[in-house]
């Protein structure tokens, strides 16, 4: 019973922090695709449009993962 209760609880109460991270990774994927397609850095409205979210929501989500810029930058040593 405890097992089932835990299962139900975990599935009914997905933390928003997790969904924000999911959105952020999707946003970065879209950003990558747009860079490949247009050979330039996209603006936030282009990414928001594909995610079907307001720009503000995308910006909020991106803050949930660390340093989205450096994640995608080549590392020179």
């Amino acid at each position: 019973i405890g097992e089932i209760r835990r299962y139900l609880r975990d599935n009914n109460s997905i933390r928003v922090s997790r969904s924000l991270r999911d959105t952020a990774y999707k946003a970065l994927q879209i950003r990558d695709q747009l860079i490949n397609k247009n050979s330039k850095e996209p603006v936030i409205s282009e990414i928001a449009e594909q995610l079907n979210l307001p720009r503000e929501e995308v910006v909020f989500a991106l803050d949930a993962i660390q340093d989205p810029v450096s994640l995608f930058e080549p590392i020179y040593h």
Partner: protein
Amino acid sequence: MEYKNYMKLEFHSKSQNEAFARVVVAAFAAQLDPTIEEISDIKTAVSEAVTNAIIHGYDDKNELVTIICRINDNELEIIVEDKGKGIEDIGKAREPLYTSKPELERSGMGFTVMETFMDTVEVNSEMGKGTKISMTKKFKSLDED
């Protein structure tokens, strides 16, 4: 352990600031580690209150809307305030389907939505002085863990 936090936001009563205001409240509430459902409830309630301030309180004139949020342990209090025209009959305004602007295809369900998604909703208003909506919601998240 007692936990408290506070913020106050002031912004122009422009419709493009509604999405902004909603995200600000959500970002503040994030420290309560809410579920997706809890955050979505709050955002919906804030949207309704802010839209009301912009279109009813200020009749789309450019003035200032204020939002205050307080966290007391696992309870979030949200106050949305305008210095606009005020509500004449609060009882009637809160009735489901009542709207003073049917021509805008308003649903008249704003207050009902706030009451549905928040634990408490208090309305204070004075004609010519403005309207203050105080809402609270308890978050289960912190209790459970």
